[in-house]
């Protein structure tokens, strides 16, 4: 050590000072231990967490919406395609709360659009409160001049983005609207299985093939993953997965035939409405009898998918589509149930033939009204009729007797063989099922009714008991008590009598019910697609094809991914019965037959089979014996039938006078115009 300045070197103060420097050393050690300990915690123990945070805050996903697949008709005409539209969105990320109000205010001012108010924007934000990390859609499909105005004010409007996204375009307008269906931003589907990778603002098919083929049409969204710096400027692209356009659908529908059907339908509807102003709705279906393919399908009132394409719908339009009677959105061809009237008679006939109690040689005499209660009138006094003649003239007496001989059990069996009691299973959503009053249906329905009646009466009995017990207990004299007991017993008996009466009335099948069913009235109710499918099965000689509208699914490059294979099953009806009934239906399409009007003027040898129907629906809005639905079913040509047709015009008054005229238009187009053009 050093050898100088003994004064300081050897002083007690120096020793004390050195102790203080040692204390400094201790402080120094603890300081560095503290810092290193904390660094160890952050960098070694918590590394994963901070690394993830660093990656997360520097990474952005930019979704790229896939184009929805196109929908084509059977010849490749484009029925639905896409056009790019500009959507106004608000990106919540990167905002401080206090900025939002200012930006929204600015936005409202810049746009000067009555739809976009501060409240409306706030409502959109609130609606998405749980998913604020996604862009909030403020207005879909804004016009180009608005886009330009917004771009000019870009710096005043942080967080406001204009995204382009594909939107549905319908080159044919309202044509086939019900079958195509519409798309709309997803809502309740979000909670359903299969929709896990959908986000708010995504479009989803709500009706028609847009709905039933949603997952084919949707495509796969792409995305870009980019790293951004602290000011959100992209620095580097990490991944770029392009979106894949959805698969396109080729329908069995023929756009040209569809146009003819819709135009004819509208003309007939307008002309019928002149006489019967209530006539404003109806539906028709044309099937390929050899595949079940739906060639055309119409429902009125018309629905324009484009109306659902925008942001919101006017009150008036919403009323038109959803609330008014008849609501336009409803596809009457598959969702509406109609009393078939005489179009049911082929089934009654087949049931009678199948029962063995009626043969093709049997004559039944019509004298203008049936001889059993309730003595239902016929359209005339037809005299002695065979099966063929009765079908041609649609004799109510003959078919009531046929129904009596067949029995409701056989009618139910034939109806069931032609699947009139279940949904056809075609590839469109919301299909309804018919109501066939078979024995099976009766047992279910009647036991339900029995339960209702019993419960009602039992409740009343219990109430009676509750009313009288305290009265009897509180009676002053024995005499009074007995009087009350008698009173109660008498009321009890009255209720029991009412129970028997109601059970008898509501839960037993009467002969009259069978007669009514036989002529297509009573409980009968079917969809138009069910009727067309049953006609097709008779026409093709006994194969029931499940109807369908989508022929093939193709990827965006046009490669076929899935081709529909006709799903045909032999119906459980003897061949001679089917043949005879088909024959009988052709007589109705010949001179003297009720359906002849539709076939007048067709080239020689075409012909066909048909049945008219005039039904009394007995629903609200229908006055008994005054308001009738007009129905018509047919197939053509008579030899080797190609098409089956079923049609209803609500309040059409008569089958031949309304639906039959639609059939006439179709048959003329199909067998005259198209034949002349070298097709068909």
């Amino acid at each position, binding site marked *: 050590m050093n050898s*100088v*300045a003994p004064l300081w070197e050897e002083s007690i103060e120096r020793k*004390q000072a050195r102790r203080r420097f040692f204390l*400094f050393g201790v402080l120094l050690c603890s300081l560095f231990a503290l810092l290193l300990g904390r660094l160890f915690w952050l960098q070694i123990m918590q590394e994963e967490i901070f*690394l993830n945070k660093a990656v997360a805050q*520097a990474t952005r996903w930019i979704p790229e919406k896939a184009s929805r697949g196109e929908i084509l008709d059977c010849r490749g005409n484009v029925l639905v395609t896409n056009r790019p539209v500009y959507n106004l969105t608000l990106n919540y990320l990167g905002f401080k709360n206090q900025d939002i109000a200012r930006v929204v205010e600015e936005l409202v001012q810049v746009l000067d659009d009555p739809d976009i108010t501060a409240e409306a924007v706030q409502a959109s934000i609130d609606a998405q409160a749980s998913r604020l990390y996604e862009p909030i859609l403020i207005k879909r499909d804004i016009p180009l001049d608005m886009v330009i105005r917004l771009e000019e004010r870009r710096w005043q409007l942080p967080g406001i983005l204009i995204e382009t996204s594909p939107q549905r375009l319908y080159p044919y307008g309202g044509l086939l609207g019900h079958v195509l269906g519409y798309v709309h931003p997803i809502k309740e589907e979000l909670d359903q299985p299969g929709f896990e990778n959908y986000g708010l603002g995504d479009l989803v098919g709500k009706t028609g093939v847009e709905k039933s083929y949603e997952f084919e049409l949707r495509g796969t969204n792409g995305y870009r993953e980019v790293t951004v*710096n*602290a000011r959100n400027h992209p620095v580097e692209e990490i991944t770029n997965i392009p979106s894949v356009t959805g698969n396109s659908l080729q329908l069995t529908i023929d756009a040209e035939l569809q146009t003819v059907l819709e135009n004819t339908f509208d003309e007939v509807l307008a002309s019928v409405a002149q006489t019967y102003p209530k006539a404003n709705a109806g539906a028709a279906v044309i099937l390929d009898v050899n595949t079940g393919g739906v060639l055309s399908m119409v429902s009125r009132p018309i629905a324009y998918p484009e109306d659902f394409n925008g942001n919101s719908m006017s009150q008036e339009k919403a009323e038109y589509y959803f609330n008014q009677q008849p609501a336009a959105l409803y596809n009457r061809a598959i969702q509406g149930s109609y009393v078939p009237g005489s179009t049911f008679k082929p089934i009654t006939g087949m049931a009678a033939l199948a029962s063995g109690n009626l043969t093709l040689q049997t004559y039944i005499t019509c004298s203008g009204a049936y001889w059993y209660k309730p003595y239902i009138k016929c359209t005339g006094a037809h005299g002695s009729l065979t099966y063929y003649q009765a079908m041609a003239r649609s004799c109510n007496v003959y078919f009531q007797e046929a129904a009596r001989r067949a029995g409701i059990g056989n009618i139910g069996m034939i109806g069931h063989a032609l699947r009139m009691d279940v949904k056809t299973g075609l590839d469109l959503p919301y299909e309804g099922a018919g109501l066939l009053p078979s024995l099976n249906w009766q047992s279910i329905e009647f036991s339900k009714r029995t339960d209702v009646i019993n419960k009602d009466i039992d409740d009343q009995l219990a109430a009676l008991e509750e009313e009288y017990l305290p009265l009897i207990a509180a009676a002053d004299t024995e005499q009074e008590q007995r009087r009350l007991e008698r009173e109660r017993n008498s009321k009890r008996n009255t209720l029991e009598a009412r129970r028997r009466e109601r059970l008898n009335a509501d839960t037993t099948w009467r002969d009259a019910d069978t007669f009514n069913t036989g002529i297509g009235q009573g409980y009968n109710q079917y969809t138009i697609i069910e009727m067309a499918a049953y006609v097709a099965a008779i026409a093709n000689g006994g194969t029931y094809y499940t109807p369908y509208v989508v022929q093939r699914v193709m990827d965006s490059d046009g490669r076929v991914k899935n081709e529909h294979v006709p799903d045909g099953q032999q119906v459980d009806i003897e061949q001679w019965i089917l043949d005879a009934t088909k024959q009988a239906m052709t007589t109705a399409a010949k001179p003297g037959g009720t359906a002849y009007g539709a076939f007048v003027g067709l080239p020689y040898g075409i012909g066909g089979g048909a049945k008219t129907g005039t039904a009394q629906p007995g629903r609200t809005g229908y006055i008994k014996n005054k308001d009738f639905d007009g129905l018509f079913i047919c197939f053509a040509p008579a030899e080797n039938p190609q098409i089956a047709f079923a049609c209803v015009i609500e309040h059409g008054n008569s089958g031949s006078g309304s639906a039959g005229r639609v059939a006439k238009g179709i048959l003329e187009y199909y067998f005259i115009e198209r034949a002349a053009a070298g097709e068909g």
Partner: protein
Amino acid sequence: MKDRVKLVIRNLDYSLLVFLLFILCAGFVVLDSASVSAATRYETDFLVQQVTAAIAGFVLILALQSIDLSRLQNFEKPAYILMNLMLLTVFFFGVSVKGAQISLELGPFRIQPAEPAKILLIFCMAKHLAAKNRQLKTWRQLIPSLLYGAIPLGLVMALPDLGTGLVLLAIIFGMLLAAGGSLWKLAFLFSGGIGSVVLWIYGHLNWDWRLPLEEYQLMRLIVFVNPEYDPRGWGWNLIQAQITVGSGGLWGQGWGQGTQTASGYLPEQWTDFIFCVLGEEFGFVGCFVVLALFFALLVRCLMIAARAKDLFGGIVISGVVSLFMFHILQNVGMVVGIMPITGIPLPFISYGRSALLSGMAAIGMVLNVGVYRDNSLF
């Protein structure tokens, strides 16, 4: 003169210089990567500027060895007056930077008088305390020394330069400790001071007491307690600093590979937040090495202090060590989230020429004490 050069060559503490050199080099390496994004923006080559300043710093260090500091003690009074005048000048003529008047513009130069003030305070305070000859046990003995330090401290606080004020406070406390101040009384002052600050802020938040703090200073304290209070605003730096350091892991992402650094998540990462860059790119190992170098440097300073020829020399070194300790605690501590954010640079590593020169001058003083440790000459 020749003898003096010989003496300097013989007595110079080379290990201290080597530690300093290593720390400076580590700083250059980190600064190179930290300033990549800023260099283009400011059209300045931060690294070249820093290296130039460091070379000047070594010249300064050598120049400081030319005379025994202990013999300059008589200049204490003029130095004290000069220091306070400098601070007053800043107070009246300073250029405002981020709300605090801390710079003086002298022609083309912009100097920050707070930096030389630290060095002058160490010098003056050392003389003042050495004269007391360790008689600092009673309040009567302590209070004049406290007032001696309080004058420049008050001037700095009035600028207001809270960061430098805290540094001066740390220097004063450290030197009182080394000069033999009563441990109990110093501990009482320390804890009492912290306690009253906490109470004051609590009172401000709850009962609206008047607080002589700027909003940003208060917010820094609030987010220090709860960073999520305003994660994209006041809490941003604190949160990002920890993410940046934490994502470095054991070995770091590699030199120039730090994504946080490259993407500019931290403002001014070449100055106050440069330790983040070190943490992200060189990991725990890099941080350990740099902190170990600092530790070695400071331990070496204390060893020189223990061999000083007089009380004055030891106290000077204690002031320097306090200065660096506080800078390291505050700067690294804020980065790792155990101290609130204040704009205090990391010695020898953060970019900044004034700070670098004053830091090296401080080392020069330490070396001076070591060089003139023998009383026999001069």
